Structure formats: structure tokens, C-alpha cells
């Protein structure tokens, strides 16, 4: 195999297609593709969620997502990672984020996937508002 596939790292208002992420990270050298879906759950602190509404500082969010993929490339040079994050209304059961890792071996693919989602939660300026049947609330990380 020659050359790296183009990096997939973006925000979208549309449903995320996991197969696109898999295609973006997998090479013939890989023995594992690890895919993480962060999905919207119905119950939040005993209130019933109708949907989540995601807001972002889009330029900085994409910049930080690219920086996280750069970190992955340094830590795990033989792996490839992709991130797609939803914005706007995301319904219960839908993915708000999907991460894919292509890796020669499975063990490191889990490590890298966990690393990426944790870094996204720390660094990327994206906010979610929970919209309930009886109100709404911005969820803050700290």
C-alpha cells in the first residue's frame, strides 16, 4: 500500500455514516478497525430527553479535532483516526459523534479510540443543550 488516505475530521449537521469513517481509516495493513459511537440517550438525571441540540465554535472545534488527530499520529504512528461530530438537533438513539481507528492490531486501536474521545471531551468547544419534554438545559462539563 502506498500513501495515506485523506484525513476525515469534520463537523456536520447530517446523520453520521460510520462506513465513511471506516473507509477513511482502514488500509490493507490493518488487522483491526475500532469504531466508537457516542449516542443520545433518552434518560438524563431522571428527566426524559426529547433531543439534544449541539452548538459549536466551529473553526476552533475543527482545529482542535485536527490537533487531536495529530496527537494520535505521534503516539500511534501506524494507526489512522477519523472524527465526525454532529451539530444541531440530534435525536435520541442517533450518534452525536463517531470515531474510527484503523490499526495493525486490536489492542492499540482500543487505546487510541479511548484517547480520542477523552481528548474531544476535554478540548473541543462543542456544547449540548438537553431539550426535555418540560424544558431545556445547557450541559456543562464541570
Amino acid at each position, binding site marked *: 500500500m502506498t500513501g495515506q488516505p485523506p484525513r476525515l475530521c469534520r463537523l456536520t449537521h447530517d446523520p453520521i455514516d460510520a462506513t465513511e469513517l471506516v473507509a477513511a481509516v482502514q488500509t490493507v495493513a490493518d488487522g483491526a478497525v475500532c469504531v466508537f459511537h457516542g449516542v443520545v440517550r433518552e434518560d438524563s438525571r431522571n428527566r426524559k430527553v426529547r433531543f439534544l441540540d*449541539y*452548538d459549536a465554535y466551529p473553526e476552533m472545534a475543527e482545529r482542535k479535532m485536527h490537533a487531536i488527530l495529530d496527537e494520535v499520529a505521534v503516539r500511534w504512528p501506524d494507526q489512522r483516526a477519523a472524527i465526525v461530530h454532529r451539530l444541531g438537533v440530534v435525536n435520541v438513539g442517533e450518534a452525536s459523534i463517531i470515531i474510527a481507528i484503523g490499526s495493525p492490531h486490536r489492542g492499540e486501536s482500543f487505546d487510541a479510540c479511548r484517547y480520542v474521545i477523552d481528548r474531544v471531551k*476535554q*478540548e*473541543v468547544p462543542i*456544547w449540548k443543550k438537553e431539550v426535555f419534554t418540560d424544558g431545556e438545559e*445547557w450541559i*456543562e*462539563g464541570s
Partner: protein
Amino acid sequence: MSDVRIELRYFARVRELLGRRADTRTFPAGTTIADIWRSLTKECPSLVGLTWKPSVNQEYATPETVIQDGDEVVFIPPVSGGTASSALNPRPHHPRMDTHFAGRYER
């Protein structure tokens, strides 16, 4: 010393409380990000007590940062975070994030 003209952009709760997405404002040279927040809270007291950390030109900064002409400044509310335990920090909230946050600059 001349004035500096900056772009302020608002997101999430800050945007909703202010009721707008952006401002272009002029401040005296030497103004810090904390000074700008104080001016916003005078205009919109419901901002008082919000937690945020600043970014300048799309990089995290500190409240003591002195703004420069042409800067884009954002008061970033805590990000979505989530409550899952973390491989990086096995605590519900991320200490690294906590230290980034400026705390409360309502005065």
C-alpha cells in the same frame, strides 16, 4: 496608546443570555479579557456566575491576557464533557479542563 478593536463571538449559554452571536468592540490598549467580561456582566447581569475559559484567535488563553488589535475573543463555557470516567483521568470530571477554567469573573 491607541485603542484596540476586537471581535467577540458568543456561543451556547453566553449567546442565549446576551441574545446575539457577535460584537465588534473597541477597548483601550491594555484591556484584559477579564476586563471585557466585567463590561459584559454590567450590560447583562445574568452572565454573573457563569464559568468560562477564554480563547484568543482560536487558542485557549487566560483571563489576564491583554487583547491585541484584531483579536477574536470567545468566552468558552465548559464543553459538553460528559460524566463517563476517563482513561486519561479516572475521575468524573477532567482536572486538566478544570484548571483551564478561569472560574468566575463576575466582579
